[in-house]
């Protein structure tokens, strides 16, 4: 990253924005004072850019669809069941999985900041962190879901989960009809981040 930045600095020296310059200044001062480890930053970024993301959650969902016993464990104790697949850690210490059904649709948010289950979804997208989503999802969830293309009938109960403590939520979406013959890996490839947050459905391609 440092390399990229200085390369960018070389080719487009004038194009660094305010926060980019400020970041560069603070990072360089902290390094000079021995207060940070450059390689630790590189590693942390690498983890969330390349190793941890919504594919983890997708694997959890696919396993639950294929293994009723696993699903039972997942809904009873999300943290342990997710750990079975090797996922866990920061911002996923206490996981609760909420199940969508024909009668109930779940959607997660964090109105006070932007809490999000990192180990199984990665870092949150900008819209999840936006003031628009944070302010509106608890007040007019149907209108928000409509903007995401989800028009749920009034007979479906909407359950919004505002992550006000260290419990982190993930939605277990409904398995799409016609997917009986797909393998677990094929199913996992259908599960999107949006479905795991509850602003999308899982569909066959």
């Amino acid at each position, binding site marked *: 990253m440092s390399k990229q930045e200085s390369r960018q600095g070389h080719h487009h020296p004038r194009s660094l924005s305010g926060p980019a310059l400020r970041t560069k200044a603070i*990072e360089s001062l902290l390094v000079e004072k021995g207060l940070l*480890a450059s390689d630790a930053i590189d590693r*942390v970024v690498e*983890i969330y850019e390349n190793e941890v993301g919504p594919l983890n959650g997708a694997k959890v969902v696919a396993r639950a669809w294929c293994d009723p016993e696993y699903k039972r464990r997942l809904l009873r104790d999300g943290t342990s069941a997710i750990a079975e697949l090797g996922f866990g850690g920061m911002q996923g210490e*206490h996981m609760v999985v909420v199940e969508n059904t024909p009668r109930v649709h779940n959607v997660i948010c964090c109105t006070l900041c932007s809490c999000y289950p990192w180990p199984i979804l990665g870092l949150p997208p900008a*819209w999840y962190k936006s003031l628009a989503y944070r302010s509106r999802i608890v007040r007019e969830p149907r209108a928000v879901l409509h903007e995401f293309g989800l028009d749920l009938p009034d007979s479906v109960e909407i359950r919004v989960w505002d992550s006000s403590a260290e419990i982190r939520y993930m939605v277990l979406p409904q398995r799409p009809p016609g997917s009986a013959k797909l393998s677990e890996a094929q199913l996992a490839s259908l599960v999107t981040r949006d479905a795991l947050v509850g602003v999308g459905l899982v569909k066959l391609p």
Partner: protein
Amino acid sequence: MNGVHDVGGMDGFGRIEYEANEPVFHEPWERRVFGMALTGAGVPPKSLDALRHELERLDPLQYLSSSYYERWLARIENAAIEAGLLSRDEIADRIKLFTTDPEQPVPRLEDPERTRQIAHALRTGRPTLRRVRHKPRFAIGDKIITRNLNPRGHTRLPRYARGKRGVIVAHHGAHVFPDSNAHGLGENPQHLYTVRISARQLWGDTAQVKAHVHLDLWESYLEPDKA
């Protein structure tokens, strides 16, 4: 605190802007800010609660006008200045230097042991569940009313959910209490519950049909609903 960060139920923030195939980071500097925040560069916050409160305490205008990582950057800068590790002049001078001499690279400090420690810490996380002796005051199915708390300091009871009637739908054991922990006043673990509140109860006549909001609330946020 009743800050601008507490936006649940507010109007005026417009449509939700969705970006297809959004990258994890939009700008290279966001990577460095994220990394500095997670590795505790400069001043590691005493706790996640303290970190959240530092973000909430940003000037309201700065809070609203900043992007997510701009807020994190401001927090890192403010914390380092408050701790006496950096000075505003020093930062301004360095910005000037990088402006006039953009080819100056950021120096590097390698610390493989610390890197291993941090990667390990991310894997283990920081659970907030604690063993306590006192029994939970509420049980699943109990009707509660959230208190009308307006503390000056940090709280995780949003304004929109104060003084509202709900039902306990889950008990998570005792967890570190943010309202004290954010201020370095101890973990004071309390029983934590998921509370289900109807949209009608939250928003009155303009509520959307058949909707409920669930919040995770500490025991001292709640009173039994005797009505």
